[in-house]
C-alpha cells in the first residue's frame, strides 16, 4: 500500500465493471433458482449423465492434448537451436485463425468414407465396402477432442513460449553452476517456473471447450451445451436451460479455482528477459523429431484445412459474392476491434487495481469478470436480452412519458449487445494475459517512483504501461480473433440486415454447402492471420 490505503473511485469503478460483466450471469442464475423441477429430473433420468460425462471427458482429452502439443513446441522454439525456428515461431500460431467448426467440417469431408483419403485407400487395396477395413471415425468424442486441440493449442504454445523467453537467465545459469546439465536446467527450473503461464492457457482452453457448440454439434457429441440448447429450443423451457447452464458454471468455477490453487504462493518476477543465445543444441535425431512434431502441428492445424478451403474456393468460386463479403468482413472487423479494445481497457483497470491494492478481496473483480468465458454464447445472448431488455423498456417508457420520440431497443436490439457479449465472453482472455504480464513486473518497481514522490497514475503511465505494452497487445489480438470467430451470440443478438463472416459461413455449413461459402471462410482465416502476423512482428 504505497499509495495510501484506499482508492474509493477506483474501487467503485472496478466493482461496477465486474458486476456489469457478471450481470448476465447473475440474471441467468436467478432465473434458474427453483427450476430444477420436473423437466430436470426427466433429463437426469435419461440423458443428462451421458451429457455430463461427455463434457468431462472432452475437457480432459482436449486439455491433455493441448499440453502435449503446446508445451514441447514452445520449449523447442524458445530454448533449442531447432532448424527453421524463425518460421515455426509464428507458424505455430496460425491455427488460432481457424474456427474449430470449420476444421471439423473440412476434415470430415476429407476423411469420410466418400472423402479422397478413403477413396484412395479403397482404390489401392481393392476394398469395396466399409466392412472390409477399419478407418477411424472423426465424428466421435475423440475426434472432436483432436480437432479442438489442434486449433486451441496455440494458447498454450504462446503463453508458455513467452514465459520461457521472459525468464531470468541467471536462474538457469545458477542451476548450471550447481551441476545441472542444460537439459536438466530446463526441466527442473525453466518449465516449473513457466507453470503459471501454462495453467492460465490450459484454463482458457478448458473454458473454450466447455462452451463449444458448433464443433460438438457437427460431430454429434452431446455435451452439456447440447442439453442447454435442447432444453431451451426443444422444450422451450428457458428456466430449466438456465438451471443447466448454472451446472455448467459450476464446472467453470471449479476449473478456475483449481487453477488458482495450483499456483497459489508462486511468485516469479524478473526484469531481465531471457533472449540469450545459449540455446540447447540438438542432435540430428532430435532435430528431425522436433521438426516433424512442430511442422505437423502447423500442417494439421492450419495448412491442410486452409489448403482444402482454397481448393474448394477454386472449384466453386462465386466471385459475385466478393462485394458482399467485403462488406460483411468490414463489419466483422469493426465489432471485433471494439470488443477487443473494451475488453483490454477493462482488464487493465481491474488488474492494475489489484496490483496496487493487493488485498485478496480486491482480486474478486478481476476473477468474477472472467466468468462469462465458459457461458455458451447462446445462453449468454439470452441472458443479455433478459438484462438489457428491461432497461430498454424503461428508456422507451421514459421517453414516451417525456413526449420524446422513442429510442427503440438501443441496447438489446443493436450491435451494442453483440459487442457487450464479446466483452463478457472474452474478458477472461484479456484478464489472463494482462495479469500474467503484470505478475512479471517486480514489486520493487512499484515503490521506486513513490519514493521519488511520483503519483500513482503517473507511475502507471510511465512505468507499468510501457512494460505491459506487449501483454496488452497480445490480449487485444487474442480477444479480437476470438470475437471474429464467435458464432452463437451473434446468431441470436444480431440486428436487422446484420451478418458476420461466421454467421455467413455457419449458415452454409449447416446446409452442407460450405463450398459456396469457401471464399467467405478464407476471409475469416485471412482476417484472423492479420493479428497473428502483427503479433509476430511485435515480438521482435
Amino acid at each position, binding site marked *: 500500500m504505497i499509495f495510501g490505503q484506499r482508492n474509493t473511485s477506483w474501487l467503485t469503478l472496478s466493482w461496477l465493471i465486474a458486476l456489469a460483466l457478471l450481470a448476465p450471469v447473475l440474471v441467468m442464475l436467478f432465473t434458474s433458482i427453483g427450476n430444477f423441477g420436473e423437466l430436470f429430473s426427466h433429463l437426469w433420468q435419461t440423458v443428462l449423465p451421458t451429457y455430463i460425462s461427455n463434457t468431462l471427458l472432452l475437457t480432459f482429452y482436449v486439455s491433455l492434448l493441448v499440453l502435449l502439443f503446446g508445451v514441447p513446441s514452445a520449449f523447442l522454439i524458445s530454448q533449442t537451436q531447432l532448424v527453421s525456428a524463425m518460421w515455426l515461431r509464428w507458424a505455430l500460431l496460425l491455427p488460432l485463425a481457424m474456427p474449430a467448426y470449420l476444421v471439423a467440417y473440412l476434415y470430415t469431408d476429407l476423411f469420410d468414407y466418400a472423402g479422397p483419403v478413403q477413396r484412395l485407400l479403397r482404390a489401392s487395396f481393392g476394398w469395396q465396402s466399409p466392412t472390409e477395413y477399419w478407418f477411424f471415425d472423426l465424428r466421435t468424442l475423440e475426434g472432436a477432442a483432436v480437432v479442438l486441440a489442434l486449433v486451441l493449442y496455440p494458447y498454450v504454445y504462446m503463453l508458455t513460449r513467452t514465459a520461457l523467453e521472459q525468464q531470468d537467465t541467471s536462474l538457469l545459469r545458477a542451476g548450471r553452476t550447481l551441476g545441472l546439465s542444460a537439459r536438466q536446467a530446463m526441466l527442473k527450473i525453466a518449465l516449473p517456473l513457466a507453470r503459471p503461464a501454462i495453467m492460465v492457457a490450459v484454463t482458457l482452453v478448458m473454458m473454450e471447450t466447455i462452451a463449444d457448440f458448433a464443433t460438438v454439434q457437427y460431430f454429434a457429441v452431446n455435451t452439456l451445451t447440447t442439453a442447454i440448447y435442447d432444453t431451451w429450443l426443444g422444450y422451450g423451457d428457458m428456466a430449466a436451460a438456465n438451471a443447466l447452464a448454472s451446472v455448467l458454471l459450476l464446472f467453470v468455477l471449479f476449473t478456475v479455482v483449481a487453477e488458482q490453487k495450483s499456483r497459489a504462493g508462486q511468485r516469479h518476477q524478473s526484469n531481465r528477459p531471457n533472449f540469450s543465445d545459449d540455446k540447447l543444441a540438438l542432435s540430428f535425431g532430435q532435430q528431425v523429431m522436433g521438426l516433424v512434431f512442430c511442422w505437423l502441428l502447423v500442417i494439421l492445424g492450419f495448412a491442410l484445412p486452409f489448403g482444402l478451403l482454397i481448393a474448394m474456393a477454386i472449384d466453386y468460386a462465386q466471385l459475385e459474392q466478393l462485394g458482399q463479403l467485403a462488406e460483411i468482413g468490414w463489419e466483422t472487423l469493426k465489432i471485433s476491434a471494439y470488443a477487443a479494445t473494451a475488453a483490454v481497457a477493462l482488464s487493465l483497470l481491474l488488474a492494475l487495481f489489484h496490483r496496487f491494492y493487493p488485498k485478496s478481496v480486491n482480486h474478486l473483480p478481476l476473477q468474477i469478470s472472467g466468468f462469462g468465458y465458459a457461458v455458451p454464447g447462446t445462453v449468454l445472448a439470452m441472458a443479455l436480452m433478459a438484462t438489457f431488455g428491461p432497461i430498454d423498456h424503461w428508456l422507451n417508457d421514459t421517453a414516451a412519458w417525456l413526449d420524446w420520440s422513442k429510442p427503440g431497443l438501443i441496447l438489446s436490439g443493436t450491435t451494442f449487445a453483440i459487442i457487450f457479449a464479446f466483452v463478457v465472453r472474452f474478458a477472461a482472455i484479456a484478464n489472463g494475459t494482462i495479469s500474467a504480464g503484470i505478475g512479471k513486473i517486480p514489486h520493487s518497481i512499484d515503490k521506486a517512483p513513490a519514493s521519488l514522490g511520483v503519483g500513482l497514475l503517473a507511475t502507471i503511465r510511465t512505468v507499468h504501461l510501457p512494460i505491459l505494452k506487449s501483454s496488452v497487445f497480445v490480449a487485444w489480438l487474442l480477444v479480437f480473433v476470438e470475437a471474429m470467430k464467435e458464432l452463437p451470440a451473434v446468431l441470436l443478438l*444480431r440486428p436487422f440486415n446484420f451478418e458476420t463472416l461466421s454467421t455467413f459461413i455457419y449458415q452454409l455449413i449447416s446446409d452442407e*454447402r460450405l463450398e459456396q461459402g469457401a471464399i467467405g471462410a478464407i476471409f475469416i482465416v485471412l482476417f484472423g492471420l492479420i493479428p497473428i502476423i502483427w503479433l509476430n512482428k511485435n515480438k521482435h
Partner: protein
Amino acid sequence: MIKKIIGLTAFAATLVAPVFSASADEVNVYSYRQPFLVEPLFNEFTKQSGIKVNVVFAKKGMAERLAREGEHSPADVLLTTDISRLIELQEKGLLQAVNSDVLEAAIPSQYQADDNSWFGLTTRVRNIYTAKRLGDMAISYEDLADEKYRGKICTRSGKHPYNVALVSSMIAEHGEAKTLEWLEGVKKNLARKPQGNDRGQVQAIHQGLCDVSLGNSYYFGKMLNDDKQKVWADAVNINFPNQVNRGAHVNISGVGVAKYAPHKEAAKALLEFLASDKAQQMYAETNMEYPVRAGVKKSALVASWGDFKADDLPLETIASHRKAALKLLDQAKFDL
C-alpha cells in the same frame, strides 16, 4: 478530460448500428428461413410495392427474443419452417390476427390458424429415401423399426424439429407407449449415431453406409441441382411413406404478424404477396416445396416424383404432442 469523454461517448454512439425508425415504407422480418430462399421473394415484393424489407435471420430463439422485446419489438413479420414454431408463437401470445380476404381465399383452411394468427405458405413432406440398389418399394414409417433394416438406417438428430414433428404424428396415431417401442426399434436399426442434416444422410446412402434415411422432399430437388451433390441424390429413390394407409407426414412453413408490429399494413401486404400466385410459384421453383395455394403448379422436377397421399392429421395435433415426443426421444436415448 470531460470533453474527451463526451467526444468518445459520441464516437462510440456512432459505432452502434443505426436504430431502425418506424417509417411507413419498410417492414421488418424475423426469419427462420434461409437467405437464398427469401431474398429473391423479398426483392420481388420491394419491386412491386416499394416497401423495403429488413431481415434478421433469427433461426434460434425467435420466440424468446420477441417475448423479451415486448411492445418495443421492431419485428413485423415472422417466417418459420415448422408448425410447432408457429403454434409456440401463437400460444405465447406473440402474434396478432390478420383479417384479409386475400389470404382467406388463397390459403386452404386446414393451413390457417382458426384465429387468423398464422398462415401456412408451403407444405413439406417427410420422405423416406431408399438406396436405388434396393429397387422400387413401398415403405412406411413403421417399417423403419423392422428388423430387416438392422444397421441400415441413417438420420439426423431425433431432436430436430422435422423429426420431432414426425414422432408427434406417430404419437397421435399409435400412442406414447407404442411410439417409444418404435423409436427404440429405429434406434437399433441405425447404421450410425444420428448426425448431420437431411442431405448428409443421402450422402451416406451414396457412400454405402446405410440404405434408408429420413429427409424432407425439397432436399432431393436441391441436391439434384447441385453439381457436387447430384451423385448423392442419384443413388437414392424418394418414397412417399404410408400410401396404403394414413399417408405421408406433412409439415408446413408459415408466417404470422407480430403482436406489436410497428408496420402492420406493410406486414399484411407482405403476407398477401407471399400467398400470391407469383410468390407461391417462386417457392415452388426456388425451394421445390409444395405451394399451398390451389392452382399453383409444382416445379417440373417435383411433379416428376408423382402425386401422393398426405396424412390429414390436423397440424395443431402434431404441435400438441411435441413435448411428449421430445421426452420419448430422451427416454429412447435416440441421439446417444
